[in-house]
């Protein structure tokens, strides 16, 4: 990039950050994050990589199109990518089951992650799913087990993991590829334990009250930054990432390069210890109750057979 371009880029970022501080309502974000023309994992991966090779399959049962995994290089640096995939058009939406994975998707993600660990490659995850697919077959093949295993395995993986919620971060299906060292959200992305529709029908006893639920649930990037659940917000163009995908892509790429510079040099003990501590103390509102939490955790950690 020329100096002029760089300058312009930062100016735009500044403007966007200003916008972000006001921000959209929860419901507006929900709608925006679900727009079919919103750039997805494939777009960001293809755009930021010099080279990308998709790797398929869980080596157990199948290849879940709703999850993309592979290896790419960003400015020569090798990275393992894992992402929910919704597909870019109706045909692909259907092929990709609208980003809702079955167990084989999570198991493919785990295989990619374990391979990254073996070859000391950092991992970047893109989260964008309404949730795991709640069908009969996925239940029978252990969708609960598949997500659970990922949570466990990702929490002690010996390489850096950066996660970006780029659209919908829905429930366990999002968390299943969401454990890492850094978690970012695009400005208009959402992250929640259940869809606002689900929240409305269960807790408000009226599915029509989804909009109200979206606010009550505090699921925007600003809410989650306030809760200290995410590390930072990645700005989007004023009309959303879909109006200027490359801008957001650049911001994500910069974040990746900056973080990897720092995280890749850490010893894996420090990396994992810090990750575990962050997970362990994520409920800020409970921290006072158990001041000895981290001490005990770290004591256990020293006894692990790394």
């Amino acid at each position: 990039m020329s100096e002029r371009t760089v300058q312009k880029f930062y100016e735009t970022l500044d403007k966007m950050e200003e916008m972000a501080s006001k921000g959209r309502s929860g419901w507006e974000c929900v709608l925006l994050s679900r727009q079919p023309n919103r750039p997805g994992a494939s777009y960001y991966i293809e755009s930021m990589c010099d080279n990308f090779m998709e790797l398929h399959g869980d080596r157990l049962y199948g290849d879940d199109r709703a999850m993309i995994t592979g290896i790419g290089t960003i400015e020569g640096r090798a990275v393992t990518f894992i992402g929910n995939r919704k597909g870019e058009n109706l045909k692909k939406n259907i092929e990709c089951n609208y980003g809702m994975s079955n167990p084989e998707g999570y198991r493919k993600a785990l295989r990619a992650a374990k391979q990254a660990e073996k070859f000391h490659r950092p991992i970047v995850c893109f989260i964008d799913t309404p949730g795991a697919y709640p069908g009969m077959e996925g239940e029978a093949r252990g969708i609960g087990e598949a997500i659970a295993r990922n949570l466990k395995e990702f929490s002690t993986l010996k390489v850096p993991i950066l996660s970006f919620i780029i659209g919908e971060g829905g429930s366990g299906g999002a968390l299943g590829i969401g454990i890492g060292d850094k978690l970012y959200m695009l400005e208009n992305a959402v992250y929640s334990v259940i869809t606002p529709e689900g929240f409305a029908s269960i807790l408000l006893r009226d599915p029509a009250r989804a909009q109200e639920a979206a606010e009550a649930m505090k699921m925007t990037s600003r809410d989650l930054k306030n809760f200290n659940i995410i590390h930072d917000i990645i700005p989007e163009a004023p009309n959303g990432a879909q109006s200027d995908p490359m801008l957001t892509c650049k911001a994500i790429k910069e974040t990746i390069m900056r973080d990897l510079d720092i995280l890749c040099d850490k010893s894996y003990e420090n990396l994992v210890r810090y990750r575990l501590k962050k997970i362990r103390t994520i409920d800020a509102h409970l921290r006072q109750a158990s001041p000895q939490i981290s001490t005990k955790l770290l004591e256990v950690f020293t006894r692990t057979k790394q």
Partner: protein
Amino acid sequence: MNNVIHCPSCHRDFDYDVVAAYQMVCPKCNHHHRLSAVKRIESIADEGSFVEFSNEMAFANPIEIEGYDEKLKQNRTKSKMSEAVITGRCTIDGKPACIAVMSFDFMGGSMGSVVGEKITEAMIEGALNGEPVIIFTASGGARMQEGIFSLMQMAKTASAAALLEQTGTALFIVLTHPTTGGVTASFAMLGDVILAEPGALIGFAGPRVIEGTIGRKLPEGFQSSEFQLEKGFVDAIVDREDLPKTLSFLITTHTEGRCNE
């Protein structure tokens, strides 16, 4: 009036005390009714051996949902429990273990920060002391009133399971009716050995959600303990009365006589 209990399985009515004498198992058809957390501990721990872990965790309404504080208070009164799980240390057949017993009676056994925290603490205690951890699950899933924090409990408990793995500490899970949602998709599926009581409902998505997706009724027995055994996610289905000796056997074979160390 509370003296009669109806069995939903064999459709007979029984004197409550008769069923209670069988630890809430139907004496005619072996249907396992829900057992309270307190009774569960009595049924498993050596008499007088249970010591509860510190129980002073703060009430919290982290995303400030209207009416949640009130709901918590009501549940405390109704269930006589402070939250949906009791944790502590006991001996089983003379052997020490850390145990966590969830209760469906408290807000449907849903997992919020306190439940996740207490379960995590029990696991960390086990890892610290090299004592097996035994968790009895019963849960409708995440405590939605705690929003994103309820989702985070899945990560927290699962990462505690990773520490058990890496310290070579055993985790035994006993799935009881019902175990669904975020509990199934975290520690409940991470046991070294996973037992289930007969006839329990065990799944990630609830039956009604799946029926909504597929547009028809689920077949009989879908997501039952027996179904999960067949599908490879449960090690064994164990009658309630056999649980103490089964757990005793598992503790022994997972802690004693370790070779090649």
